[in-house]
C-alpha cells in the first residue's frame, strides 16, 4: 500500500490527470496482489451507479446556466449597492459576492472566475493594489465548497454515509465566519491604504432595493435547494434537478440573456465538467476499495492511538496533514479517498464525524489557494494578468484570516454541528 501511495504522488507530480493517477496506482496494486482485474471495471461502474451523486451533474448544469445567464453581474450589482459606500468598498464587494456566488455555484474555481472577470478591471481602474485584490478574490473563492449547495459536501456525504442535508448545514456557519474574516481583512487593508480606497458615492436605499429585486431570482436557487432538503420536500438529487429548472426559467424568461438555442451547448459543457468530477469518483472508488480491503483505516488508527489518545492532537495533526494534501491534490478526489479512511478514526478519537467531515472540506478548500494545485489562485492571478508569485506575496492577510477561522472551527465543534442539530436532528435524520 505504501508503494501505491508513492506511485500515486509520483504520477500527480509528473502531470498525469488525477483520474488516471488514481486508476493507475490502484491497478498496479491490484495486479500485484493477484486480484481479478474485473474488480476495476466493477468498482468504477459501482461508483457511478448511484442516484445520490446525480446531484453533482445537476448542480454543475445549474451553475453553468446561471453563469451564462447573467447571474454573476446581478450579484455584483447587489453587493455594490450593499457595501459599495464603505471604505475599501470593492474589496468588500468581492467578499460579499464571494458568499453569493458560493451559494449559487457550488464550486470554488467557478466563483473565482466569475468574480475576477467582473471586478478586477474596476479595481485596477480605481488604483487598488491589484495583487492584494486578486489574492482576496482567490480567498473568497474558497467559500464555494464550504457554503451550500456544495459539490464537495455531496461527495463527502455519499462517501461516508453522512446526511447531505446535515453536511450542507454544517458548512453554513464556518463559511459565514470565513467570509466575515475576509471582509474584516479587506476593510483593515483599505483603512491603511491611500485615497484610492475612499469612496465618493453614498449609500442609496433605492439602489439597494432595485438591485436586490434583480438578484432575487438568483437567490431562489440556494433557497429552494437548502429549504427543500431541510423541509424534507426533496432528496438532494431532486432539489438539484429543481435548481436546474429554476435556473433555466430565470435565465430564459427573467434575465433573457440566453435563448433556448443555447441550451444544448450548456448541457454539453455541464456534461464534460461533471464527467471530470465523476470519473474521479469512479477511479477513486477502485482506490478506496483497495484501501478498505487492505484494512488501511484500522492500521492508521492503531498507529495513531499508539502515540496518543488526545482528540486535540489528532485534530491538529490531521489539520496540518490535510492542508499539505490540499496543496497537491484536487479536493473532490482527496475527499473520496481520505474521508472513508479518516472519519472512522476521528470517531475513535471521540470527534463528531460531521465536525470532522466539514473540517476536511475547509482544509482542502484552503489548498485551492496555495500552489502547486492552487486553482482559485491561478484563476484570479490569470485574470488579473499578474504572476502567481506576485499575487502570492499579498496573500498573507487573507490566508492568515482563513487559517484563524479554521483553527477556531477545529476547537469549537458547535460552529459546525449546532445548526444541523437544530434543523435536522440526528434521531429522525432525513435528507440523505
Amino acid at each position, binding site marked *: 500500500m505504501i508503494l501505491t501511495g508513492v506511485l500515486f504522488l509520483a504520477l500527480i507530480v*509528473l502531470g498525469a*490527470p488525477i483520474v488516471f493517477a488514481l486508476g493507475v496506482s490502484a491497478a498496479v496494486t491490484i495486479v500485484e496482489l493477484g486480484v481479478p*482485474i474485473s474488480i476495476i471495471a466493477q468498482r*468504477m*461502474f459501482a461508483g457511478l451507479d448511484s442516484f445520490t451523486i446525480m446531484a453533482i451533474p445537476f448542480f454543475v448544469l445549474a451553475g453553468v446556466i446561471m453563469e451564462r445567464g447573467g447571474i454573476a453581474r446581478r450579484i455584483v450589482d447587489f453587493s455594490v449597492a450593499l457595501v459599495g459606500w464603505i471604505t475599501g468598498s470593492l474589496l468588500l464587494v468581492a467578499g460579499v459576492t464571494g458568499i453569493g456566488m458560493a451559494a449559487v455555484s457550488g464550486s470554488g*474555481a467557478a466563483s473565482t472566475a466569475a468574480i475576477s472577470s467582473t471586478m478586477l478591471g474596476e479595481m485596477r481602474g480605481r488604483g487598488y493594489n491589484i495583487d492584494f485584490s486578486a489574492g482576496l478574490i482567490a480567498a473568497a473563492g474558497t467559500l464555494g465548497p464550504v457554503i451550500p449547495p456544495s459539490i464537495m459536501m455531496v461527495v463527502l456525504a455519499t462517501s461516508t454515509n453522512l446526511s447531505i442535508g446535515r453536511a450542507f448545514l454544517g458548512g453554513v456557519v464556518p463559511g459565514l465566519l470565513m467570509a466575515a474574516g475576509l471582509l474584516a481583512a479587506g476593510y483593515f487593508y483599505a483603512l491603511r491604504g491611500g485615497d484610492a480606497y475612499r469612496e465618493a458615492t453614498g449609500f442609496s436605499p433605492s439602489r439597494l432595493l432595485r438591485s436586490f429585486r434583480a438578484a432575487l431570482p438568483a437567490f431562489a436557487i440556494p433557497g429552494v435547494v437548502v429549504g427543500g432538503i431541510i423541509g424534507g420536500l426533496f432528496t438532494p438529487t431532486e432539489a438539484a434537478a429543481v435548481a436546474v429548472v429554476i435556473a433555466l426559467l430565470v435565465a430564459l424568461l427573467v434575465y433573457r440573456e440566453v435563448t433556448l438555442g443555447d441550451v444544448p451547448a450548456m448541457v454539453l459543457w455541464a456534461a464534460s*465538467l461533471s464527467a471530470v468530477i465523476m470519473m474521479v469518483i469512479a477511479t477513486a472508488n477502485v482506490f478506496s476499495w483497495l484501501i478498505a480491503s487492505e484494512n488501511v483505516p484500522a492500521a492508521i488508527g492503531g498507529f495513531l492511538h499508539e502515540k496518543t489518545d488526545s482528540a486535540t492532537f489528532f485534530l491538529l495533526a490531521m489539520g496540518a496533514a490535510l492542508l499539505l494534501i490540499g496543496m497537491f491534490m484536487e479536493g473532490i478526489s482527496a475527499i473520496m479517498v481520505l474521508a472513508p479512511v479518516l472519519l472512522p478514526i476521528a470517531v475513535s478519537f471521540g470527534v463528531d464525524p460531521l465536525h470532522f467531515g466539514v473540517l476536511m472540506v475547509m482544509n482542502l478548500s484552503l489548498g485551492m489557494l496555495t500552489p502547486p494545485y492552487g486553482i482559485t489562485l491561478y484563476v484570479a492571478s*490569470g485574470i488579473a494578468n499578474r504572476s502567481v508569485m506576485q499575487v502570492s506575496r499579498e496573500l498573507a492577510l487573507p490566508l492568515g484570516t482563513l487559517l484563524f477561522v479554521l483553527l477556531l472551527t477545529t476547537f469549537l465543534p458547535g460552529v459546525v454541528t449546532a445548526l444541523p442539530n437544530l434543523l435536522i436532528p440526528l434521531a429522525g435524520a432525513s435528507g440523505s
Partner: protein
Amino acid sequence: MMRRVVFQLERSLRVTRAAVSSLVFLFFAYMLAAVLVQVVGRYFAFSIDWAAESATFAQVWMVFLAAGLAMRDGLHVRVDALVNLLPGQLQRALMLVVTLVCLWFLSLAVRGSVDLLRVGLIETSPVMRLPMWLAFLSLPLGLLYLGLELVLSLGAYRAPQDGGGTTEATGADRGPGR
C-alpha cells in the same frame, strides 16, 4: 492516397464526436426528465421506481461518454505547475510516458469490463428487470473513446514556449468552467 486516408480519418473522427455529443445530450436530458417525473409522481402517488433506476443508468452512460469529450476539451484536472518548469523536450518525453501508462490502465479497465458484460448477460436490474449489459456496455465504449481522445490530445500537445506566464495562462483557461 495518404491525403485521402487522413481525410477519411478526420471525417470519421468528426462523426464519432458528433454521435458521442448527441448521446451525451440525450442521456443528460433523460436524467433530468426522469428525476422531475419522480418529484411530480410522488405528489400524485403514481409508481415511479423505474425513474430513479433508469436515470442512474443514463448517468453511467453520460459520464463514461462525456469523459472523452472532457479529454478533448483539456478539462481533466492535473497538476502542471511542476512539469511546466522542465525544458520543452523533457516535457514532451514525459507526456508520452504518462500517456502510455494511462493507456495501460484503460486497457485493463476495458478487459475487466468484458468479464462484467458476461455477468450482465445473465443478471437483470432490480426494478425494471432490464439486462445489466445494457448499462455495463457504457464502460468499454466510453473508455475506448476516452483512450482515443487521450492519444489525440498527445498530438495536439505543444510544449509551452520558454518565458513567463504559461502556468497562469493555463490556470485561467481551464478555471472558469470549474
